[in-house]
């Protein structure tokens, strides 16, 4: 290697748009979902507080009512994207070996899709019956 190698700047990685190859879009999306998450989290806590100690029939009825269901759906979808970006950031910070990086990034996507879609399905089932 040449003498310039030790002082090589991070420009090479910047040109490749960073460790996840997607530039700053995730940084911005994480801010957008965090702002949206504030009222949605407050909404979630109010809903759960209102459901404490209620019978199954009452919980089903309230969770299936339009306003509550819509807040829950927004919370789940917004949180899914927020936590997907957040976990990706943690993985990129700590998992450097290429094989494990790809596997954990993939597992992150699988986990987020499975958990959030299962939650969305439950809300829709409560909303539309069957």
């Amino acid at each position, binding site marked *: *290697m040449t003498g310039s*190698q*030790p*002082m*090589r700047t991070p420009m090479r990685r910047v040109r490749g748009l960073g460790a996840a190859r997607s530039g700053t879009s995730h940084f911005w999306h994480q*801010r957008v979902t*965090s*702002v949206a*998450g*504030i009222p949605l*989290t407050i909404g979630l*806590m109010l809903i759960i*507080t*209102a459901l*404490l*100690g209620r019978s*199954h*029939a009452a*919980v*089903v009825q309230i*969770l299936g009512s339009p306003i509550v269901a819509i807040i*829950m759906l927004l919370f*789940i979808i917004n*949180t*899914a994207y927020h*936590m997907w970006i*957040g*976990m990706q950031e*943690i993985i990129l910070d700590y998992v450097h070996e290429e094989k494990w990086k790809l596997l954990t990034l993939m597992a992150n996507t699988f986990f987020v899709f499975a*958990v*959030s879609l*299962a*939650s969305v*399905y*439950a*809300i829709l*089932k*409560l909303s539309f019956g069957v």
Partner: protein
Amino acid sequence: MQRPRPLSPHLQIYKPMLTMMMSIVHRVTGAALYFGMLLLAWWLIAAAAGPNAYANVEWFMGSLIGQLVLFGYTWALLHHMLGGIRHLIWDTIHGFEPAERELLTLATLIGSIALTLILWVVGYLVMGGPR
């Protein structure tokens, strides 16, 4: 001969500070909430599945372990939310003076603990006391 690139020092070289500890806590609570979404999913799926499945969730959430997990979940959610608000304030390039950043950081910690306790007192009042 090849010399390694200069590296910035890592965490262990710094004296622990509140802002640094809360930065770590923000990440830890985020990771905990990530897996905590499993609890929310379980609760919703059980409600959709029927009374028997829902009774199982109620039994677990009402047990000592379940209550401890839910208490931790409440605090983690509130702390991550308040920490997020602090980061949003910092994103606007405000609150970086030494006294300001200490105040903001302390406010997220005390605020999250206080709000958690208030929410749980309200919760127990709604339910008519511990069961």
